[in-house]
């Protein structure tokens, strides 16, 4: 609502929220051992031969860093060949804590061995922490807000929340959300030094849009982003996320026992965790009668305490779309 003092956030006189809750309409994964988001639900998924970076020399992939290649694969799968109708009103939100670490470390080593003249100008963009968001925008001509978050292990759920916030604020009509963490040598070394035995090599992408935007382009809402909480403790974060929801929760996608623990399955996922959790939620609504999935990231079971994180916990409540029904089909993978 430009022109009013509160600008985008002006509340209508009757106090009703200006927008309905945003929906997830697309998922794409580029994760070693997984074919798509449905494999996140199956502990014995058999896609072990799958290399998430198999197309590294393919079109649009050469001379890019591994994090960006993984992200671009995931985005292509999430879009499944469809173009978003209004690229100027489409945001990109990337969550990654270690995406550019290998480039920065390589540059430091190169300077020590060869001085600055050894640095390749072609790789200079990769030293920038927002390089992945830039490449995603470039490949799909997305000219809306372009955000990179690096808030530790909560960062993936934070990114989904910020995508929803961008829509609510009228800053975008749709958002491409990516969580990516590449398994590069410096990342592996840092994880090992801090007691991890396994960690993610991959990316996940979600398409988040307003419900009316999804209807207009004829795509099926797969999950509704219903609530978000951020607090020092898990209980408080979950309470914030569920304050407007009083029906039973179905699956918990959260670290620790009693739910779907993607960290136990995939290793530390860091900035990609929350985005993977939301993809798992979308798959769950297709395969069960659950009405709600509670995602939690950032407490001790995700390795956050040893990662120098800010130490908060994020919780995101996802609910079944009204038109949703169990039994959705596996996506066609067109990359």
């Amino acid at each position: 609502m430009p022109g009013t003092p509160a600008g985008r956030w002006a509340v209508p006189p009757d106090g009703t929220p200006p927008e309905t809750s945003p929906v997830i309409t697309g998922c794409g994964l580029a994760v070693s051992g997984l074919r798509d988001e449905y494999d996140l639900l199956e502990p014995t998924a058999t896609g072990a031969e799958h290399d998430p970076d198999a197309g590294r020399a393919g079109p649009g992939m050469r001379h890019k860093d591994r994090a960006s290649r993984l992200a671009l694969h995931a985005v292509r799968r999430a879009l499944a060949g469809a173009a978003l109708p209004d690229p100027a009103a489409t945001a990109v939100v990337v969550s990654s804590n270690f995406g550019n670490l290998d480039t920065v470390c390589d540059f430091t080593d190169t300077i020590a061995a060869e001085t600055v003249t050894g640095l390749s100008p072609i790789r200079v963009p990769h030293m920038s922490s927002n390089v992945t968001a830039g490449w995603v925008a470039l490949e799909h001509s997305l000219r809306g807000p372009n955000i990179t978050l690096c808030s530790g292990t909560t960062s993936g759920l934070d990114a989904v929340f910020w995508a929803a916030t961008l829509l609510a604020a009228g800053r975008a009509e749709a958002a491409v959300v990516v969580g990516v963490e590449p398994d590069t040598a410096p990342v592996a070394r840092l994880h090992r030094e801090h007691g991890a035995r396994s960690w993610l090599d991959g990316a996940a992408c979600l398409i988040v849009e307003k419900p009316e935007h999804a209807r207009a382009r004829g795509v099926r809402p797969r999950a509704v982003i219903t609530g978000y909480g951020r607090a020092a403790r898990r209980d408080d974060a979950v309470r914030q996320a569920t304050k407007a929801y009083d029906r039973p929760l179905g699956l918990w996608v959260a670290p620790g026992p009693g739910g779907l623990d993607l960290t136990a399955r995939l290793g530390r996922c860091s900035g990609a965790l929350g985005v993977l959790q939301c993809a798992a939620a979308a798959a769950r609504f297709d395969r069960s009668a659950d009405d709600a999935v509670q995602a939690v990231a950032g407490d001790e079971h995700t390795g956050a305490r040893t990662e120098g994180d800010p130490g908060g916990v994020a919780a995101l409540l996802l609910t079944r779309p009204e038109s949703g029904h169990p039994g959705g089909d596996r996506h066609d993978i067109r990359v």
Partner: protein
Amino acid sequence: MTSGSDGRRPVLTGLGAVSCLGAGVGPYWNALLAGGAAPREVDLPHLNMRATRMYRVPGAAVPEHPRRHAGVPLGAVPRMAVAAALEALDDAGIAGPDRADVAVVMGSEMGNASVQEERRGAGGAGRPRWTPLAVAGAAVGTAIGSRRGNIGVGNACSAGGYALGIASDLIRSGEASVVLVGAADGVTRVGMGGFDRLGAADPQRCRPFARDRAGTMFGDGAAMVVLESTTHARRRGARAYAELAGVAWSCDARHPTAPDPDAAQLVRAMREALADAGLRPDQVGCVLPHATGTALNDAVESRALRQVFGPGTDRLPLFALKAMIGHTSAAAGIFACLTAALVVSRARIPANAPLEQDPDCAVWLPLEGPLRLERPAVLANTCAFGGNNSSFALTGPGGTT
């Protein structure tokens, strides 16, 4: 508009800075009025490049503490961020247990990378511990005792502008009442070397809009501001420097490092920021441009300003801040915000650094001053690799000067 939404207008109530002009906002402003700083040589091994200077924070202004966070050794960047954060909160009069309720939004480009670099460059003598980008924000959150959200923004040289927008949306949406938002960046050979290899680094000084500009020159430092809702500020009787009246973001989606010569998305960001603030272009009394001193940026931004402000551009004072403190990377947007808040609250615009202006940059850079701020708003731009653009507008609290 309802009174509820009016009360959520975000105002700036506290400022903190550590820069090449020294520690503290008072010395910072006085030094801007006196013409800014001169760059100094960076004394690091293996540089072997044309441009080896930076606008350096004086050694005495770099705090010694905190030395570690969660076992991670902290370099100068997070330490300066903590010092600026404490200054900003003191300035805002937020103390003791009230600090637990302050959310933190922290922009960073290289973060704590200087620690990593020093140890890797020491021939493998030290094993670097985990230093994620978020550590600066985590150190700030811990130092002030915050128990609210802590968000790390990695939008390269526009991280400050994006962090301001995120903080503003937190307040305007009612998610938070007080947000400490800032950014910090430091001296790294990776950053300097990368720009040198792109041919985008000036060996003499940062000379935005100058005919003989040869690229940018970095500066280190930290800038933090306290942003809070009008209602919250009024309730505790805090005085405000300015209102953060509008913020907008866009992406060129054209080139990984260079700006789009058409500037369509930078123009869009400026127009949307003004619209968000409810301002007309003729209500803007000063612009703090991104103005890095690179050949393309300054020419493109000049054309973008003419598209937004039309013939009025000839009478619109610009203040090219980077000529005085260098390009502080992620912190550039926060330094611009902090400077704009001082310009608004003191109604004075410092004179620009002397230059022979590039005729391809048809903008007005007053060389005499300080000038009086004649119109109510100040607009600032930040741009970055990845085609990221951010613009934001400040006015006097309640839309006044």
